[in-house]
């Protein structure tokens, strides 16, 4: 299969490979896919107090297009607000990397990974607010 130059570039020199501490309050983690389907993506975002994504990391088990899609989105989400990041569409990823039709699922997975990471971060902070709220009510 012929890969586009951009896929090859991300595959040869993947950006932002690695992991953040899952337990860190400022980190949102999204893991999507399944080994049985041949691809699993883990995407992590580090969010500042202003709600802007400061940094991102990924690890991907999958074909070259899956690796390139996740590498690309780690670059794209940086500097974006949570909702802006969550609105990145798979069609943008597929267009940027010139993915062939059989590889569109890789871009869908990358979109899902961002949404999952944002969701995870938001969940953590809902809990945090509740956790802070409980001691106050018990005091009263």
């Amino acid at each position: 299969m012929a890969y586009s130059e951009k896929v090859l570039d991300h595959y040869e020199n993947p950006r932002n490979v690695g992991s953040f501490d899952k337990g860190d309050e400022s980190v949102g983690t999204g893991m999507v896919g399944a080994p049985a389907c041949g691809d699993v993506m883990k995407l992590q975002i580090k969010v500042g107090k202003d709600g802007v994504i400061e940094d991102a990391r990924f690890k991907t088990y999958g074909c070259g297009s899956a690796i390139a899609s996740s590498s690309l989105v780690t670059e794209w989400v940086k500097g974006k607000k949570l909702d802006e990041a969550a609105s990145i569409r798979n069609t943008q990823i597929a267009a940027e990397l010139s993915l062939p039709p059989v590889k569109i699922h890789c871009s869908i997975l990358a979109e899902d990974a961002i949404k999952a990471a944002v969701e995870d971060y938001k969940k953590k902070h809902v809990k945090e607010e509740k956790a802070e709220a409980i001691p106050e009510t018990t005091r009263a």
Partner: protein
Amino acid sequence: MKRPLTLPIYLDNSATTPVDPRVAQKMIPFLTEHFGNPASRSHAFGWKAEEAVEQAREQVAALVRCDAKELVWTSGATESINLALKGAAEFYKTKGKHLITVRTEHKATLDTMRELERRGFEATYLEVGADGLLDLNQLESALRKDTILVSVMFVNNEIGVIQDIPAIGELCRKRGILFHVDAAQATGKCDLDLQALKVDLMSFSAHKTYGPKGVGALYVRRKPRVRLEAQMHGGGHERGFRSGTLASHQIVGMGEAFRLAKLEMAVERERVRAMRDQLLAGMNQMEEVFVNGDLERRVPHNLNLSFNFVEGESLIMAVKDIAVSSGSACTSASLEPSYVLRALGRSDELAHSSIRFTLGRFTTQAEVDYTVDHLRTKVAKLRDLSPLWEMHKEGIDLSTVQWAAH
């Protein structure tokens, strides 16, 4: 075989082999000088071509120990298999309509069986064990009164395991059931003795044994006589089994290739085995590397490995200096992993993580050494990228994780 290392390295000899230069030399005069039609009986051009075709038939017969008259030229193993299965099923359909084969056969057999099912035959697809081998008791219990044909491959194309053809032959002959063997991957690798084997039909290909593409042969036993319904009609060539002008230059190439295989097989096999063992030892220095299929009952040319936690297509992309094939069909439109590895009961992850290395006559020591180093570097790089490897290192059992299938 001291040659400088040139990239890429070819380790896909089960897909096809290069034509041996000695074979190519023999073929060339039959394109330009001795171009006659072997069926032309009225002049020297035809006689010369016919003589060469019959000499090649003797050469093929010598390798597999049959009578030259029992061989029919075809365009390759796929056509041989089609002619054997459809030809026998159609001829013997009044005797019964049940056919048996194995789930790990080549698509040439499986798709032909599917076609015969559409024509009203019934087919049983036998399972194999985790080692890739057929259990004879299972075969025996699948045999029915109306079973007319069993088809089993000699050497598996993906994992290289050797089925117990002598025993299967005994089982079938006792019951008067025809036995077809796909030997495309066996010639030049295994000793084939059709005097001893109770095989009725056997399919061969030239291009897996250093001959040209586009030519093969079908062995059709004369004693006891096996009859077939022709699938290709025309001038009545090949005793009516397969019409069409014989591709004399290709046939000469197959003859010479099989002659060389007979001469050199024993020495070549041990040389390849030594290199395969080094390749495996080198790979085994990595963690979580598994051999697919039985390692003992296997041709030494094949090493099919799963590199756990690394996806096959990305690995093939990473090792672009080495021409190999992947058990992950992700390269095609489907996301299904290899049906052969699935039949062994391999998990989807391991099936998706497999690479087939197939060594051959022209593989060198330097190529094997390079391959080991290259794979170790690339597997380490991809594992650093793999969330599954990270989880494995954290001690998480991946089989207990709930994955969201997509």
